């Protein structure tokens, strides 16, 4: 069986393309140089192109963590699907969480085509060998958390995802365009929940403010610590275009005014925009907390992984028989 879209570890890539790095007659050093020139010059890479191991690994790690985050991001909201207080909210939340599962599918497909089987990726996630985003390690206490997650966590995510629509890895870029299109409705749903609570009873408003206070720290940490642009290999390979700090600034400049507009407050007395530079200033986020949380020592890390392990085990028979997924041990070297 030939597999036309399969990847380097599975099959040799396009050898006769016009792109010089696909030419197997060249030395690997020469191919690397051609590839680097192509990518840093704005060129795109397809799954069937030859690519240096470093690039393949780097893209895979990036996409895999993104996929893991979509999958784990289902869990905080999932329990509220059952508790949504009206039929329309129930429908909207079910559809939103469904999209997250769908996005996990799209992203795992991209990663699978880079050579790592989905079962292996899920196994590594369950074993704690790979990571997922910090915001999905925290608990949800009230319906207001659902509004804050759907509006602001999704907004912070979409700021990052929009910057990935032009990724050098073309299958990822295409997927990000589909995901961004689908996610635009999530923010509307979240904002609608938030605005309804803001204009509701005193208790609803208090619950919302409380949720916002709890989520603000994780939101400020979400894009990661400030980094050196020139040392960032994801930027070098144009897998992503923007640094953590650029994304955070973008998020703050769009959403802080919209939060304040509703009469809500943010738990950072230092937070303000510098009028001269336009830059947002804030109390340094707690990077120690971020490191603790993303290494699966967050308040809900273990519980959520255990829940996912339990359900993965309970449905293993379906995959073994009807779906007959290739078993992990054999597949990935």
């Amino acid at each position: 069986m030939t597999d036309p879209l399969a990847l380097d570890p599975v099959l040799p890539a396009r050898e006769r393309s016009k792109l010089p790095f696909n030419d197997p007659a060249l030395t690997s050093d020469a191919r690397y140089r051609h590839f680097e020139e192509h990518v840093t010059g704005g060129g795109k890479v397809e799954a069937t192109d030859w690519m240096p191991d470093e690039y393949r690994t780097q893209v895979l790690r990036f996409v895999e963590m993104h996929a893991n985050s979509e999958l784990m991001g289902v869990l905080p909201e999932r329990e509220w699907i059952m508790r949504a207080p009206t039929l329309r909210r129930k429908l909207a939340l079910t559809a939103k969480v469904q999209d997250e599962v769908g996005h996990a599918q799209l992203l795992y497909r991209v990663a699978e085509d880079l050579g790592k089987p989905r079962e292996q990726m899920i196994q590594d996630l369950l074993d704690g060998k790979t990571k997922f985003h910090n915001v999905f390690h925290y608990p949800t206490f009230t319906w207001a958390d659902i509004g804050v997650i759907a509006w602001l966590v999704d907004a912070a995510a979409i700021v990052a995802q929009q910057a990935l629509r032009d990724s050098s890895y073309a299958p990822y870029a295409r997927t990000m365009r589909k995901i961004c299109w689908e996610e635009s409705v999530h923010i509307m749903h979240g904002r609608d929940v938030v605005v309804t609570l803001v204009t509701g009873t005193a208790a609803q408003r208090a619950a919302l403010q409380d949720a916002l206070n709890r989520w603000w720290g994780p939101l400020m940490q979400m894009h990661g610590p400030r980094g050196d642009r020139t040392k960032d290999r994801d930027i070098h390979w144009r897998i992503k275009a923007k640094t953590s700090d650029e994304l955070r600034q973008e998020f703050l400049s769009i959403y802080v005014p919209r939060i304040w507009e509703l009469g809500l407050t943010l738990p950072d007395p230092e937070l303000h925009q510098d009028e001269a530079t336009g830059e947002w200033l804030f109390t340094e986020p707690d990077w120690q907390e971020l490191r603790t949380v993303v290494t699966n020592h967050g308040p809900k890390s273990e519980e959520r992984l255990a829940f996912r392990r339990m359900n993965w085990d309970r449905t293993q028979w379906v995959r073994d028989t009807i779906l007959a997924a290739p078993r992990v041990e054999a597949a990935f070297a």
Partner: protein
Amino acid sequence: MTDQLPADRGGTAESATSLEPWEVFRQEKEGDPMRHGGSVMAPDAVLAVHYAREMYSRRQESVRLWVVRRADIHDLDDPDLLQPPMDRSFKKPGGYVMREKLAAAREQSGRAKPKGKAK
């Protein structure tokens, strides 16, 4: 839709092989070309079609889907075959430059250049 689905032999043992990728092509509205949307994993054609529907039209964004086993796609990207190096300008409109010859012909006939665009 039932009639369009592949025959379901899912209950029999021989059809259950293993998960494999199926490529999905979608038509956004009547008259549009079929465009590649992405892929799904499925153990057989019937479930592949179900999953294609879920992944590529759950927002009613398609009017037609084609679902093809990836292994059944024949890939051709050989530049010798697709981008052959010799001159093919005689196959393209841009390969025919006759402005000067036309001007000479008009001068010869004494007629003006017709209005409007034509080939």
